[in-house]
């Protein structure tokens, strides 16, 4: 490569060197935006997500709670949630997981047979381990499909990693002073013992002429010189030592830890949360995404089948929330401290925001407009092989009670401004 005439070669090279030597910033988040839109809009819809704190010291805990709805129009490309592991997405083990549950059932092991169209409630307690600022998400991993990541919040861990400890007590009585270091010194010592014997065996041979003289002697059919009776005796000794070390070590470990258990591998089951009473019937009509306007316009027909008037308060998809700013109950539904980068600033525009009376059927037109469509890389549903989307609609009655309905269908792109 030739430097440009206005930039002397040595300056160009110096700049390259500086760039190469400058320290790369560690990744705080972990590529959740890289997940295809059909994964984020038509699988698990996360709601009521709460993080108990946004700053904690090493050894302190943060509790992440919330719910998810498994969307009825589950994509063909994603395996159904027959085996699911409830987890958290963080950049490596910067937090230690203290406990977790799904609908109150311990979630250390995977769950089987989650039901599409139903809701589940999770909880996980994480302990600060590595100081830094991290994006912490709830997550479920579906066997055959991989992780489905929920919304993330930046959480700062302060203090010193050296102070971190995770003590436990074994059922058999042993005191595990720290899960970080338990048993490591024994493993290292044992490996050093075996390594010592192996090195002695290798040294026994390489102290003598090693390659060329032995090769030449062998070509001259003087194999008798290359291994002697002493070597044979050493080999027999080595065999005895290795067998004795192995079974002696095994016997020592058995006597030292007489009660051990195999890895635990069964799956768990929990019934979904009780289904909410149905208050609305939704019939999807059409949806268009206005590319230059970064706006999703949707038309759907809603019938109020309850005995109370309802208003639409929120449309949520892919963890982005479009909240009706004219409905106090909907605004109150956004928990304090919820990450504002995934709450649309312009809110949700509704053509007719008046109450939907009991028994009334209305065609609703909503505009969900925000740069988040682009920032969260959701517009690539226009290039997906399955150009459909989905989301949750949150309706509220006059008492402020919330009712959740699903909506979704094909989506069409609009590439030109209409005005």
């Amino acid at each position, binding site marked *: 490569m030739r430097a440009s005439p206005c930039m002397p070669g040595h300056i160009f090279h110096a700049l390259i060197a500086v760039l190469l030597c400058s320290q790369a910033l560690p990744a705080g988040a972990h590529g959740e935006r890289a997940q295809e839109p059909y994964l984020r809009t038509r699988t698990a819809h996360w709601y009521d997500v709460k993080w108990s704190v946004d700053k904690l010291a090493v050894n302190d805990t943060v509790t992440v709670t919330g719910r998810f709805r498994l969307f009825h129009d589950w994509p063909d490309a994603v395996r159904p949630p027959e085996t699911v592991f409830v987890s958290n997405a963080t950049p490596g083990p910067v937090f230690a997981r203290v406990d977790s549950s799904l609908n109150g059932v311990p979630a250390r092991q995977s769950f089987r047979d989650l039901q599409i169209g139903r809701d589940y409630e999770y909880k996980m307690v994480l302990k600060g381990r590595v100081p830094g600022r991290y994006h912490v998400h709830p997550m479920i991993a579906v066997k055959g499909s991989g992780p489905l990541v929920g919304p993330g919040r930046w959480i700062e861990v302060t203090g010193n990693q050296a102070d971190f400890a995770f003590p436990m007590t074994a059922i058999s009585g042993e005191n595990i002073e720290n899960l970080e270091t338990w048993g490591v010194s024994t493993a290292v010592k044992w490996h050093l013992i075996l390594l010592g014997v*192996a090195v002695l065996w290798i040294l026994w041979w390489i102290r003598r002429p090693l390659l060329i003289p032995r090769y030449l002697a062998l070509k001259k059919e003087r194999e008798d010189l290359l291994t002697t009776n002493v070597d044979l005796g050493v080999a027999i000794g080595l065999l005895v030592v290795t067998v004795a070390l192995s079974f002696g070590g095994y016997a020592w470990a058995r006597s030292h830890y007489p009660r051990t258990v195999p890895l635990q591998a069964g*799956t768990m089951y929990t019934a979904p949360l009780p289904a909410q009473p149905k208050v609305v019937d939704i019939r999807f009509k059409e949806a268009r995404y206005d590319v230059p306007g970064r706006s999703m316009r949707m038309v759907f027909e809603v019938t109020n089948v309850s005995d109370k008037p309802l208003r639409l308060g929120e449309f949520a998809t892919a963890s982005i929330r479009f909240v009706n700013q004219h409905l106090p109950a909907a605004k109150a539904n956004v928990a304090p401290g919820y990450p504002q980068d995934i709450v649309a600033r312009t809110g949700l525009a509704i053509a007719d925001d008046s109450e939907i009376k009991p028994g009334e059927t209305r065609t609703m037109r909503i505009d969900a407009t925000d740069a988040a469509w682009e920032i969260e890389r959701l517009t690539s549903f226009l290039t997906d092989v399955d150009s459909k989307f989905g989301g949750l609609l949150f309706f509220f009655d006059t008492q402020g009670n919330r009712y959740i309905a699903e909506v979704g269908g094909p989506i069409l792109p609009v590439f030109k401004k209409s005005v």
Partner: protein
Amino acid sequence: MSPNTREILQVSGLPPEAVKLSRIWEWFVVAAVALLFMGAIHLHVMLTVGDWDMFVDWKDRQFWVLVVPVSMLMIPAALQAVFWHYFRLPIGMTLGAVLLLIATWITRIFGWHIWGYFPFTMGVPSTILAGAMACDAILLIVRSSLLTSTFGGFVFALLFYPSNWPSLAAYFLPVEHQGMVASVADMIGYVYPRSGTPEYIRLIERGTLRTYEGSTVWVSTFFAGIICIFMHMIWWRIGLAFSTQRFVATSKRFRHFMGLADAVHPASKA
């Protein structure tokens, strides 16, 4: 210098200067080959049985004792063939096992602990040192590749579990967590989250060998021994095949194509 060494050097026919040079050259070769095989064996193991060796919560009684020795035997067996066939040195497997263990600890320290934040407890590696040394010793005793495969291969797998248990038994103590029993290894896998490695992805014992009561590990060990016999035979021959130098006759046109000969001019033919 021992009389035996003196005799070997004498038989080799090398003059004293060449003996000195060959010794220096050997150390360079040893250093280069050690690094090369350290990387090769480690890469091979990571690609074939990676998670079983990487994570303590994958070291189960059924698959870990089966697949890890079978995979870890391969390149050391090839090395054993090369060292024995050309130099009558019964150190190939031991050398392979030493290099593998060193490489594994290097990656555990720098890759997993320093870079990936994982505690050492998560990645305590398995070792094949005991089985490798026994197999090398058997080779020198029986002096036959067939018998080494038969006895050495089996012993290699047989020693795998008992020689690893002293370093791993502590991770199989029972603990209580959320009202359920778990091993310490299960807890380590749970406490230190791996976002891309959910619990269900573990290929571990699911209770299918229940009829063998608590002897699952020895059933798997025996089976691993049988496979290791054949695996040793195969990789011994692969080692020999890849260390054989052959000269292949080539056409003049091919040599010209490769830039090794003058051009063939039709006019000159005439």
